């Protein structure tokens, strides 16, 4: 078990570093095992050094930067130990347009090997999707599903209803 953990740590650390540089276009992300409480197993520290900035603690990062670091780590785990499917609920809400583009690029890479379901209000993410489902509340308090199809650039990316499921 110990060997497997060490192996996973090394692979996730390498992948995290790679994805970090892709998302931040530079800088350095890495994982470290740190002695935590006495006697317990060492804990996992996340090191994020943004491009051009001195190393700062995670706490000083901005809202969007924290999300990018977390996403790099999650995607690293999913690449080292793939899951048949994954579900994300508004994970990119804090990102600006530029970082949304980088995020959807990562999402497309991930979708090569994993089925991706993402709940979102972000038009950039909608545009990157292959399939679009709308959840509506035509009757107060009850949900129904509508299969939508994105009609790019015709109406600014607002999805058009195709047919009621």
């Amino acid at each position, binding site marked *: *078990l110990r060997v*497997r*953990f060490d*192996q*996973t740590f090394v692979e*996730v650390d390498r992948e995290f570093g790679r994805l970090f540089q892709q998302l931040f276009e530079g800088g350095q992300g890495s994982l470290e*095992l740190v002695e*935590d409480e006495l006697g*317990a*197993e*060492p*804990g*996992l520290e*996340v090191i994020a050094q943004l491009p051009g900035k001195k190393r700062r603690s995670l706490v000083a990062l901005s809202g969007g930067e*924290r*999300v990018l*670091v*977390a*996403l790099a*780590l*999650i995607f690293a*785990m*999913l690449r080292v*130990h793939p*899951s*048949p*499917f*994954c*579900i*994300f*609920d508004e*994970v990119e809400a804090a990102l600006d347009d530029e970082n949304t583009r980088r995020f959807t690029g990562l999402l*497309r890479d991930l*979708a090569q090997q*994993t*089925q991706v*379901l*993402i*709940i*979102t209000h972000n038009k950039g*993410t*909608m545009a*990157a*999707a292959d*399939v*679009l*489902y*709308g*959840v*509506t*509340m035509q*009757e107060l*308090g*009850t*949900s*129904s*599903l509508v299969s*939508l199809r994105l009609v790019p650039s015709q109406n600014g990316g607002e*999805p058009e209803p195709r047919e009621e*499921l």
Partner: protein
Amino acid sequence: MQLRRLELVGFKTFVDRTELEFHPGITAIVGPNGSGKSNLMDGIRWALGETNARLLRGSRMDDIIFAGTASRRPHSLARVSLTLENGAGDLPLEFSEVTVSRAVTRGGEGEYAINGLDCRLRDIQMLFLGTGLGGRSYALIGQGEVDAVLRATPLERRQWLEEAA
């Protein structure tokens, strides 16, 4: 082991039988605030064997049963069925498609089935054990949860990585 189909009846805001077909690639789920998007994800977590009502935004397990609206009476049962593709044999069953089905009554009594055969909750949980899926894996990131891994202690992060090993 990709997702094939989800069917909900009486589960939160999905009162009438609702079916969702899944596709490979990226599927985006969109809709107004409160329309029922996160409820869909709760339905999938529940079908995978989640036992903690609070992670489904309730306090008791029967909180997931449709509670009624001004024009509809409350239901007494909620049922969710999730069909997964099993061509590669990730799930230890001879079938190329596996459907797990879970129901709960107002009193909290559960009914469980795998491919139509009655079973216990433990059987569903054991089914997913080796796959790393279960309700709480790093492949399911709920609303507001994306930076939970950064907020966690070093020890909690280690445990998160161990789950993946």
